[in-house]
């Protein structure tokens, strides 16, 4: 019964997501070259602030670490 339910979910998803053409519509090499030649992006200050906040929470509430890891 459960396996049949799982198969129905699988069928619903496969019907909702038809296969796509697995060939890029354009040559991506020029875009790769532009990306390689571009200046590396600056790390946004918000990322560092978020990291500091996470470290602070982990230090103050060690029991919260598994919860944070689950949502990563």
């Amino acid at each position, binding site marked *: 019964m459960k396996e049949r339910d*799982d198969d129905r*979910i699988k069928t*619903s*998803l496969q019907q*909702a*997501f038809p296969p796509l053409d697995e060939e*890029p519509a354009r040559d991506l090499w020029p875009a790769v070259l532009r990306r*390689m030649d571009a200046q590396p992006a600056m790390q946004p200050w918000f990322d560092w602030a978020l990291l500091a906040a996470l470290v602070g929470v982990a230090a103050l509430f060690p029991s919260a670490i598994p919860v944070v890891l689950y949502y990563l």
Partner: protein
Amino acid sequence: MPGIVESRVDQGETRDFLLAFRHGDRDAFEWLFRQHQRTVYGWILRIVCNPATAEDLTVETFWRIHQAHARFNPALGFEGWSRRIATRAALDWLRSTHRETASRDELADDLAARSAGDPAISAEIRRKTAQALQSLLPKLRIVAVLVLIEEEPHREIAAALGLSIAAVKVRAFRAVRRLRRNLEEQGIKP
């Protein structure tokens, strides 16, 4: 430059290309790009289900590959390594869009509008199914797409995600349970 690349291909010196890439040779990198871009694009497309996004992430993946060239181990092969980097890039994208409800709705609408699906399935059901999938946590969504839609072998998914096969099965089980619950809440009995 294409002439140089073509003559090297004729020599069939894959190993030399891999070693040259490891040392930062741009021609070798282009050769590897040409050999693997379709595979990488196809893998990412299966995860994100959007051609434009898959193109952007393919560029991002090959940029990351180039950045990491010194850490590449030719003995372990390029395909598995590139697939892991592609999976990481796709997962980062899923995480960044997971919080954006508007972006999720846009993707669901885009999917519903596609005409290539089963004609017996209404656009509304496709939209709701897409929304249910996109409501999953990214780490469950990526497994759901690869296990349920693409039916990729558990072993390959585990290798791409850096997980054990058992962990992939557990995530697939959780994803199915949440999908069923979400669809039932939307009035669809799968």
